[in-house]
């Protein structure tokens, strides 16, 4: 085991020596790979921020039921009974038109404008909160229920508040797919850059490799420093890309803050947490390793 560690220590030291001999070239390659990684990393950061938001919204979908203006209050209130029969597991809240107007005044900041209207234009309404509804996939049940509610006497209109959640979920799925394709494409770019870097290293160290073979070095011993170089390149580029994305979130959040404020939201983009970031670093190192493996297998085989 000690020998195993010693061999890997030697390989890592050899890789660092090779990097030190041409630091400019290595740094440039890190930059190229980091640029390729930054785009999918940014996409993942955005999705990571948006996903919990959409999940939270889909937990408590609502159906709003608006009563006709000419329906008296007691008849409107009596609709609660058939509503409970139709939506047994739902939480049903009656919102009188006066309360609806007060809410509108409080939340919109348009109390002055609303005061000029004179009569309250809002109808009595019900909010049906469906606890059992969890995902967009069960949205079909909500549609059926909404149709049934629409047929109740005195009902003017029914609005399913989950519709836009379904659209958001579908949009996120499309974004995820696009991101995966982008990541696959740029992952290939990373592998290609590392492949070429290692090819150049093999060429510049040709004499050392040949001498090593003549003095009894195994292929594994010769290949290992190149693997470390590839993994190191991927790791450093991954770190740089993550750092770049985290820095970019600052100005992006300034713009988002203004937009979110319009919706009375405090939404901000946060950098990836430790575990996903560690996963991306491991993935970057893995891509570097794959590039090095392919390059070494191809180019060192020619020296045998």
């Amino acid at each position, binding site marked *: 085991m000690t*020998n195993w560690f*010693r*061999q890997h220590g*030697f390989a890592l030291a050899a890789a660092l020596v090779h990097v030190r*001999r041409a630091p400019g070239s290595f740094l440039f390659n890190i930059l190229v790979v980091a640029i390729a990684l930054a785009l999918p990393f940014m996409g993942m950061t955005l999705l990571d921020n948006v996903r919990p938001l959409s999940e939270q919204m889909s937990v408590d979908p609502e159906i709003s039921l608006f009563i006709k203006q000419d329906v008296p209050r007691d008849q409107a209130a009596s609709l609660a009974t058939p509503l409970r029969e139709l939506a047994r597991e739902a939480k049903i809240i009656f919102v009188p038109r006066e309360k609806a107007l007060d809410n509108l005044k409080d939340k919109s900041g348009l109390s002055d404008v609303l005061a000029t209207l004179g009569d309250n234009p809002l109808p009595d309404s019900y909010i049906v909160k469906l606890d059992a509804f969890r995902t967009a996939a069960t949205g079909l049940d909500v549609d059926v229920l909404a149709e049934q509610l629409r047929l109740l006497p005195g009902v003017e209109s029914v609005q399913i508040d989950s519709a836009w959640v379904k659209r958001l979920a579908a949009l996120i799925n499309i974004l995820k797919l696009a991101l995966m394709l982008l990541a696959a494409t740029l992952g290939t770019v990373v592998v290609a850059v590392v492949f070429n870097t290692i090819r150049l290293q093999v060429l510049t160290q040709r*004499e*050392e490799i*040949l*001498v*090593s*073979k*003549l*003095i*009894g*070095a*195994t*292929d594994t*011993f010769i290949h290992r420093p190149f693997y470390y170089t590839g993994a190191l390149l991927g790791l450093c580029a991954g770190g740089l890309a993550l750092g770049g994305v985290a820095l970019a979130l600052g100005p992006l959040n300034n713009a988002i803050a203004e937009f979110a404020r319009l919706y009375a939201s405090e939404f901000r983009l946060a950098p990836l947490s430790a575990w996903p970031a560690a996963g991306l670093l491991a993935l970057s190192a893995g891509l570097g390793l794959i590039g090095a493996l392919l390059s070494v297998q191809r180019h060192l085989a020619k020296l*045998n």
Partner: protein
Amino acid sequence: MIEFQHVTKQYGPDATALRDVSLTINKGELVFLAGPSGAGKSTLLKMIAAMERPSSGQVIVNGQDIGRLKAAGVPFLRRNLGLIFQEQRLLNDRSILANVMMPLMVTGAPRAQAEQRARAALDKVGLADRADSRPLALSGGEQQRVSIARAIVNRPQIILADEPTANLDRASAERVFDALRAFHSVGVTCVISTHDEVVLDGAARVIHLRQGALE
């Protein structure tokens, strides 16, 4: 220890490097290979080091059939060989000490132990005080002695030297051969190809090759 049985090596239909060569080199022998350029001396040495495989016949080194030796087994065979070339093949980007340490590092020897043995090997060839120099700072004769130190640092059973004094003056050549004779005197088998008539005159055993065949 080294046995050639009806060995032929062809690089193509019209290029035969060795023709039906049969010979035995015993443990501890000092053998010189002589012959004009293109006689097959280098090919014979390369076969012992498993750098070439016979087209027909058998080459046995330390009990291993070179023709059947798997690629993974070649490094382990070479760890028992010390190879010295006409052009020294030293790495100019590192010190002489680092060059001599290389055969030990590839076996996974601890650095301190490798350094100690490399310094001892350099001492044996009279270059202990140049350990930290770069190869290009040394004369051709000194560089060849460094390559001898690299060849013997692993305490090999066999030393193979291909024209080790071809580019050296008489005094430097003598020092190189003195070093090789010193290792032979402690039981190391040495197979040396050379054109040096002075050396061949006093040799106990000389194998003459001409156009790939034994004379």
